[in-house]
């Protein structure tokens, strides 16, 4: 069995390559939505925050976890909604200017 850390490292490096391959194809037209969208994705740390806030280990742990849940949720919810708001505006209406 390989060390779990090594497996995690494999995943990390391969995911970076996937990221490079995918994101170089995004046109400059969509760079702002890309940025706010990936920004919302970085709020995935919410998953870790939920465990810290709900595991009930110590007051300090729960407090830090709850704070993390609040700010990560702002990041996720706000980020995705604002991206949607922007993408909705990108329209192709020929001849309208």
């Amino acid at each position, binding site marked *: 069995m390989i060390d779990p850390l090594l497996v995690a490292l494999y995943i990390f490096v391969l995911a970076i390559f996937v990221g490079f391959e995918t994101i170089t194809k995004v046109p400059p037209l969509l*760079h702002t939505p890309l940025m706010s969208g990936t*920004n919302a994705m*970085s709020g995935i740390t919410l998953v*870790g925050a939920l465990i810290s806030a*709900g595991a009930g280990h110590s007051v300090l742990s729960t407090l830090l976890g709850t704070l993390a849940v609040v700010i990560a949720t702002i*990041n996720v919810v706000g980020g995705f909604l604002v991206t949607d708001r922007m*993408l909705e505006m990108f329209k192709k209406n020929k001849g*309208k*200017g």
Partner: protein
Amino acid sequence: MKIIIAIAYLLSSVLFILGLMSLCSPKTARRGNLLAMIAMLIAIVATLINNEIVDFTFIIIGLIIGSTIGVTAARKVSMTAMPQMVALFNGLGGGSSAFVALAEYYRLTGGLKFNVSISMIISLFVGAVTLTGSLIAFGKLQGIIKSAPVVFKAQRFLNLLIFTLFLIAGIIFIINPANNAYLLAILAIAMILGILLVIPIGGADMPVVISLLNSCSGLAAAATGFVLSNNILIICGALVGASGVILTRIMCNAMNRSIPNIIFGAVGATSKNINKDDNRKVITYTEEDASMILEIAQTVIVIPGYGLAVAQAQFALQELVKTLIDMGINVRYAIHPVAGRMPGHMNVLLAEANVSYDLLSDLGDINNDFQNTDVALVVGANDVVNPSARADKNSPLYGMPILNADKAKTVIICKRSLSPGFSGVDNELFYQKKTMMVFGDAKDSINNLIKLLKT
């Protein structure tokens, strides 16, 4: 249970990647964002069925508060304020990663494995630098803090000293993880460093800073993933990290700057007027002159710059372009990568003003068309059309990719004054014979042009 969670995380990762892939075209982009939202929801629900969670009270409170603030902010923010909004969200993401790492320390208490303590330090450090750095960037973009670079003596030395302190504290913590004082010291050091690193950076370099911080918030999430041995955090963090790096590189190339040059350079504060030649004369034209040239043109390329957004003239410009198109003129927009305060910002501002995206062209796609164009209409842009970037080896702009507006038959420039752009370099295009300078507020000038063209 563990297998169900693992499979849900895998599904979530796949949806995240598919979502990013859909961002390659404006037609599918909105669906892509929706896929990413679903992916996030799956990851959250899968986490909530984890039997480690015993008490949902604080989770629910946190989710409600966070969602309320998030929804309100996303609805209210104006498109011009998007850069500071993204900066703020970035900081929150980074901060969250740092707090999770810290909470995890108090949960595990002592006896940390070597690899966990290293990941913990990285997550805490990168997360906290992202938090305070982003808050400063937010303050500068929002105008709460002076956007001019704050430079003082021995700044670099101080940063180096603080970074060394971080390394020392980190090493001691790894040797003796039971002592939490060093972990808290790392948190404090990182927060100070975040402030010090962004404070000397000027407003014009903000696109690079935001991209870089975007990348950092991803890396902090990935490091937290290593602490928690959680693959979805690692995958998502790596994707965001990669995206930030690509955008940073694009911005650096477009501004002809390197990352060390931006972080340690602190330029833009001094104004250098190279080649100052007093024999050159600027010829001022009126809107009537400009409208007559536009009327007889067949092809027009519009070059919008950040000055357009400052004057809130996007809607007026859209109306002008519509008027020209209705007259049978072929009009397109040429968008420079740094025409705004963050990557792609100008495209969003024009999309908001109902400009169809097929009229928006990137620098590479449109630059060869200028020689066959009758009029290049420059509104609120300066450095991105400065020909010295192509020819003058002494110019600080030399090597920066520019829009070849000077190759068009006539260049109309709507500008407030002759003042140089962010680079502080004089623009020789203003003095050329084919250039018509129309001074004044961009919105007023454009509205006058519309009136003249319609009569």
